[in-house]
């Protein structure tokens, strides 16, 4: 593994990391980033093999942070160490950052118009639909009673009762991990 990553390390320049992740950042919309990265990194450039990519995806999904940015950090640091991770994340975030500020400018100019407001209302509704879709996809991994109970408790505390999220998460996350560690037998791999 280490010899493999060291050969990868020498072959990818920081500039090409920034360019590749910029292109993915600018072309990927709403949750499709992983698919674009797969095409670019595994199929087109062969920077990662498929198995490694799936592991990266799983780790990046469970850790805090936006998945596309986490994947950039993971892949960039695998290829070129910490500076590579920073370059990849910069490439991933910078172009969309400029685009969203341009959209924000247009919003501040024309956001008052009823039609613009109606269109944004429609887009927000679709956005919530996408959030539900992601929730349903993630929920497929939660099958046992206690983890389901934990998910429902967090939903009620944060979504319904509007308790502040950080203390809720700080209490229930260690509990959830402890439950998985000691109460639930490990699935056969």
């Amino acid at each position: 593994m280490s010899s493999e990553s060291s050969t990868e390390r020498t072959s990818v320049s920081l500039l090409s990391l920034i360019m590749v992740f910029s292109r993915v950042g600018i072309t990927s919309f709403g949750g499709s980033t992983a698919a674009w990265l797969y095409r670019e990194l595994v199929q087109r450039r062969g920077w990662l093999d498929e198995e490694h990519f799936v592991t990266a995806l799983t780790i990046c999904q469970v850790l805090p942070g936006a998945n596309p940015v986490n994947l950039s950090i993971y892949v960039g640091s695998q290829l070129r160490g910490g500076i590579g991770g920073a370059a990849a994340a910069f490439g991933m975030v910078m172009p969309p950052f400029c685009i969203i500020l341009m959209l924000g400018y247009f919003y501040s100019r024309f956001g008052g118009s009823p039609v613009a407001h109606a269109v944004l209302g429609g887009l927000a509704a679709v956005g919530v639909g996408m959030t539900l879709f992601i929730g349903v996809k993630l929920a497929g991994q939660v099958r046992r009673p206690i983890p389901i109970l934990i998910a429902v408790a967090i939903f009620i505390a944060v979504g319904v009762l509007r308790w502040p999220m950080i203390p809720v998460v700080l209490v229930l996350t260690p509990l959830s991990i402890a439950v998985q560690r000691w109460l639930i037998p490990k699935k056969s791999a």
Partner: protein
Amino acid sequence: MSDGRLLVIALVFAPLSLMSFGGGQAIIADMQHQTVDIHHWMTGPEFADFFALSRAAPGPSTLISALIGWKVAGPLGAIVATLAIYIPSSLAVYGAVRWWHARNDSPWRGALERGLAPVAVGLVFAGAVAVMQAAHVNALQIFTTLLAAGLLIFTRIGIYAIMAAAALVFALLQWL
């Protein structure tokens, strides 16, 4: 534009960064609570508009923090908010990846992975409810939300086709 505002922006977004298990959807509920109810930086409908913009734009949905930062403190606010929302989680990921590769066989690894999943699920659904409450949604929007979720779950129709159709329908209904 004062330094105080930039500091508050950083203090709001940096902790959210570390709480965004499963992605940006997880922290939308708290982001809305902080920006609308606690700091009064904007109204609920404005927040919902920002949410829509961040969903329509390329890149991670957490870039909504750039819009909020801009609204509160201009260009510097946008930069500070964006750094605050990405740097803490990125450092955590960098550390975790190193730890992960050092401990291939630790029983904690699987427990961590499976233990975080229910937290992410609960937070994602809470985020959906928070945005709907902030936007004071009408029946048509609720219908659109459910239809979009259904299409995404059960068909292979792309998100952009759905967004374009929704934008068109809502614009036409406004004109008529």
